[in-house]
């Protein structure tokens, strides 16, 4: 028989047997070895006990007969096979004692879930035994490292005839981190004698330093429907995340302006998140470990922003041989390769290019010519190196390029200045280096440095040009020192040094939020400025993490920021309290100040106000987290934010053009549920609902008005169900209240320039239509000898809802019509992995 054609059975569901009550306490799991027949319908019959304690045998036999398998198949046809199966009884969990140390425990199995006795686990960190310690797992495949200080640990797993692995794990005082490592066999040929073991595995996340921190797990990142496998777009389903306007490429977090939030890649701000305003993100999702979304009350390590934070964590390249992924879709294609270099280093290289330029011209009206069709690229390289057991070095070189150029043959009917060449290009390249050192048992040092140019070139016609060049240098150093089991001190410095050059020509700069319909460029007096400067923004922070009891965590932080462009500084105290009230219930609360410098252009001479001050905000939040089961979590969070010293335009753009007179208030509540997949229910799902109100006031004498992206209701449901035979199907549904808009009540003829200027009504006094959309993703995988293939269809806007994205006006503003968003867009893709 050609065993390559035989696919062994796999577990669909395992019935749980009760742990015998009359059995004395045991140290660990108890295994009963069975021989069973898995019928071709997946049922189990003819169980025979081959070994194991007598008291457990009957329960194991009863449970296995109620279990279900995906039957074995031969040449694609289901066949009946007899296999050996280890049924594992987990001892009842002892009453949890308050732990003042951390524990890492887990299981090592092969790809089919069978334990690998004798596998060697090495914990390469400075714990109790100094240079690290190693264990050989027992017959049940389990291992435990106890009494570990908090920190990141490098876990190496090796076993004869299996491909070694190395993983990074986080251990936290008072928590148990459970892991499961599945090793690929060096010889992948299947055999009838393979053993199968089942056990539930969960990962207990490290406790957050923020009140609300939502983590999307690595295995779920790339499966959210409607994102075309783009992990960073998965943020859109999280509570508190607003719907950005089409083409905006922005993230709206808890009613904050997009510029108030920041995306960090391993502690360093990412210059650009999405290609072409939201089409796809600039970083290959398959190089990400996880994404953390912190909508407010974030740690003092983050500064210069008053909205929310997204922290993107890349992973180390795989060190267990050559791996590669090639993916083609109708939008773009990408390639990723990763491999070890010597014993202590590994490298990943990724590249992506879009295909939009091949079809773009077909969608354009006749009077628009294409000089350069839209095209985007991005690239990533990660080199991870571990010179000693205490040090990890990681070097990254990544970047992105977006560019297009069009020619508008006819003048815009409402703005004659909007004709001729239109071009936009954004590019950045970043070289980033990070060094993590475990100084001793209780202290750890992180150093991150990044440098790279960022450019934005925009031009339209003869009157509108904007060129920006920033050579951004960024440095972050952080030291974490556990001074006692109940007290940890974290302190650090982050420095942003940005020599920049701005070349601007166009209508006077103005606040666009709350501005309503802007006047045509043809009616404006064109202004220009060209200047260079260095923006120096040092920040210092300190955080005290105190655990008065095992259940209570208090984090008191203080941050200092200085902005030399405005000469202003900020001192922001922040406090977070987390209380693990019961095993299930966690109460969390936070209060803090946050500050942000004005945008470069707002404080530029000639077109802005160099005397602006920083913008400030206070965040207050209170939440409850319920971990109902290992798979199901529910959270409820309430928040309030008040903003002051917001930068707003002066009335009608009179000098000094921008002032700090704006204020804002935002309040709301978020409810979310997460269901993680388990063998019993192979479904992961997110449900989130946000109700909020975001208001602004631009001048003292004005009343509060709605913010441009005030979205009262945001409901998102997303789920992916793993079907047998490696099929999966997922849906994402979103409902969002329509954005506030400012009505245009008419137009005034500008006799000098032969155009009409709009007359705006009350700012944001009406709303556009509600937004709703359904996205679908179906994926089928095939396992091949050295990897797998996948074919997927990702359909955005399944029922072709014409969502309102704005209004278009005729030349004199007497008529308007709705601009609809994207229609149904199916995206077919294929992916190959080795």
């Amino acid at each position, binding site marked *: 028989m050609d065993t390559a054609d035989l696919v062994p059975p796999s577990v669909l569901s395992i019935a749980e047997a009760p742990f015998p009550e009359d059995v004395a306490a045991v140290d660990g799991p108890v295994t009963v070895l069975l021989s069973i027949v898995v019928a071709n319908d997946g049922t189990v019959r003819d169980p025979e006990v081959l070994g194991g304690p007598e008291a457990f045998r009957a329960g194991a036999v009863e449970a296995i007969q109620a279990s279900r398998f995906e039957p074995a198949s031969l040449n694609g046809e289901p066949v009946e096979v007899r296999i050996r199966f280890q049924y594992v009884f987990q001892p009842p969990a002892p009453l949890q004692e308050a732990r003042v140390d951390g524990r890492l425990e887990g299981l090592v199995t092969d790809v089919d879930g069978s334990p690998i006795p004798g596998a060697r686990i090495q914990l390469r960190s400075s714990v109790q035994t100094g240079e690290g310690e190693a264990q050989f797992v027992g017959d049940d495949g389990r291992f435990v490292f106890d009494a570990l200080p908090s920190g990141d640990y490098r876990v190496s797993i090796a076993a004869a005839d299996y491909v070694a692995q190395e993983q990074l794990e986080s251990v936290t005082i008072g928590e148990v981190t459970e892991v499961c490592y599945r090793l690929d066999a060096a010889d992948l040929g299947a055999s009838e004698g393979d053993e199968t073991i089942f056990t539930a595995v969960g990962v207990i996340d490290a406790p957050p330093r923020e009140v609300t921190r939502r983590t999307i797990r690595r295995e779920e990142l790339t499966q959210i429907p409607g994102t075309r496998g783009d992990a960073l777009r998965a943020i859109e389903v999280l509570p508190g995340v607003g719907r950005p306007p*089409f*083409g*905006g490429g922005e993230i709206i977090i808890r009613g904050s302006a997009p510029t108030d939030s920041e995306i960090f890649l391993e502690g360093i701000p990412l210059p650009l998140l999405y290609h072409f*305003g939201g089409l796809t993100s600039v970083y290959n999702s398959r190089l990400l470990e996880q994404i953390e979304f912190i909508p407010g009350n974030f740690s003092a390590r983050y500064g210069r922003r008053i909205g929310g934070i997204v922290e993107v964590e890349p992973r180390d390249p795989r060190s267990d041989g050559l791996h590669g992924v090639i993916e083609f879709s109708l939008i773009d294609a990408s390639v990723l390769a990763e491999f070890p270099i010597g014993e202590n280093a590994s490298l990943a290289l990724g590249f992506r290019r879009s295909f939009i330029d091949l079809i*773009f011209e077909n*969608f*354009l*009206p006749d*009077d*628009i010519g294409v000089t350069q069709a839209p095209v985007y690229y991005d690239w990533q390289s990660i080199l991870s190196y571990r010179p000693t057991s205490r040090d990890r070095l990681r070097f990254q070189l990544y970047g992105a390029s977006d560019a297009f150029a*069009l020619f508008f*043959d*006819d*003048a815009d*009917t*409402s703005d*004659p200045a*909007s004709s001729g060449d*239109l071009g*936009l290009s954004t590019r950045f390249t970043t070289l980033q280096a990070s060094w993590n050192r475990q100084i001793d048992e209780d202290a750890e040092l992180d150093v991150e440095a990044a440098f790279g140019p960022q450019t934005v070139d*925009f031009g*339209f016609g003869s009157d509108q040009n904007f060129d920006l060049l920033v050579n951004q240098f960024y440095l972050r150093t952080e030291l974490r020192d556990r001074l006692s089991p109940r007290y940890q001190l974290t302190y650090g410095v982050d420095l942003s040094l940005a020599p920049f050059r701005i070349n601007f020509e166009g*209508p*006077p700069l*103005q606040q*666009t939020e709350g501005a309503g319909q*802007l*006047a045509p460029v043809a009616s*404006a*007096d064109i*202004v220009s400025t060209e200047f260079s400067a260095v923006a120096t923004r040092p920040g210092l922070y300190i955080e005290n993490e105190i655990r008065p009891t095992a259940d209570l965590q208090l984090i008191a932080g203080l941050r200092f920021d200085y902005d030399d462009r405005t000469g202003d500084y900020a001192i922001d105290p922040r406090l977070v309290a987390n209380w693990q009230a019961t095993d299930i219930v966690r109460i969390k609360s936070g209060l803090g100040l946050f500050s942000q410098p004005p945008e470069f252009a707002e404080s530029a001479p000639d077109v802005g106000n160099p005397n602006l001050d920083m913008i400030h905000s206070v965040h207050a939040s209170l939440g409850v987290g319920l971990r109902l089961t290992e798979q199901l979590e529910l959270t409820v969070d309430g928040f309030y934010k008040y903003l002051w010293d917001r930068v707003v*335009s002066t*009335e*009608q*753009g*009179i000098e000094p*053009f921008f002032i700090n007179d704006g204020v804002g208030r935002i309040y709301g509540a978020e409810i979310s549920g997460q269901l993680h997949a388990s063998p019993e229910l192979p479904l992961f799902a997110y449900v989130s609902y946000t109700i909020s109100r975001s208001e602004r006031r631009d001048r003292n004498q004005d009343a509060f008005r709605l913010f441009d992206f005030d979205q009262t209701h945001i409901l998102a449901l997303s789920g992916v169900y793993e079907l047998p035979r490696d099929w999966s199907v997922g849906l994402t549904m979103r409902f969002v209240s329509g954005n506030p808009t400012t009505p245009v*009540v*008419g*137009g*005034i*003829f*500008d*006799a*000098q*320039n*032969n155009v009409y200027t709009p*007359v705006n*009504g009350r700012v944001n006094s009406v709303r556009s239509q509600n937004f709703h959309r359904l996205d679908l993703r179906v994926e089928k995988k095939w396992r091949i000898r050295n990897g797998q293939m996948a074919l997927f269809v990702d359909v955005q806007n399944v029922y072709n809802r014409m969502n309102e*994205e*704005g209004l*278009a006006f*005729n*030349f004199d503003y007497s*008529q308007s*019509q709705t*601009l*609809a*968003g994207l*229609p149904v867009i199916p995206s077919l893709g294929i992916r190959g992995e080795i």
Partner: protein
Amino acid sequence: MKIVALLLLFSVSACEDNFDPPSLLARSRILGLAFSVEGDPDRTDPLRGETVDLRVLWAFPNEPLPLSFQGIACVALQTGFGVPTCDPDFGVIAELEANAPAGDMPVLTLRVPDDFPEGRELLLFGGTCAGGPVDTLLLPADGSFDTSALDVCERPEDTGELLQTTLPIPIDIADANRSPSLLVDMTLAGQPLATGNLQTGDACSERKDLPLLRVGGPRVALVVSASPESLEPLTPEGDVNPENEVLQVGLMITSGEANANFLLIEADDLIEDTTIRPAREAERSPGSDGSIERIILSVRDGRGGLVVQDVAYCLLEAEP
């Protein structure tokens, strides 16, 4: 960046608007204001103490209508954007009102005060109505327009427009703009266009002096050319950085569509890639005698000059 997002939106969704072509003269439309200093008619910028005449120019699809204007003049607040506003430190300089019978243009006469602040511009803001009087409620005496009302005309059946313009008030006559006569010529399908008192819809099949287009026919080239004098640099001769004249050309037609309603003539002295699409059957039925269709051309220069040309061609029935 909003404009880029909108452009992408239009592009990706292949979305073209359903508005009437901006070039279509389907109702009475304002063309602009023409300035002329009394006693020095070529000059468009008055000095302090001088009087300037302002003519309100309209285009009508058919018979001309009586016109009215009501507005104010004031010192313009130096703003960056938004609806132009009077500087409250100076108040209203003059209230202006003029009416004209059908076929004539309202002419406003404004004397610039002797103490007009140096370096500031004059703002003219008002409402003009075709067919009847301007609503007197539009213009409170303090010059604060209620732009949210925007009911310019007293009678709802009339067509009204709000308009505004600013006018520099130079101190030295050498700094004042002068607009030479703007000489612009047009050909349609290689033929010159007829001028004169031609009424839209009049029979024309026997007129051999008009270009002939047919309903549903192909697009034909409209060539607009300007005289070299019209394109003389704005800056004095010998200036090291001469600022070239750019003529703004606005196009309106009584049926069909011009592929642009706004054109620029710059260093080249003509525009030759503009086309006219004759009306389709659903848009116009000229009858067996054909129908006069008009093209209204308004030309502005950078010195305050404005001329209007009203020309015609003959639209014939579709080919059988």
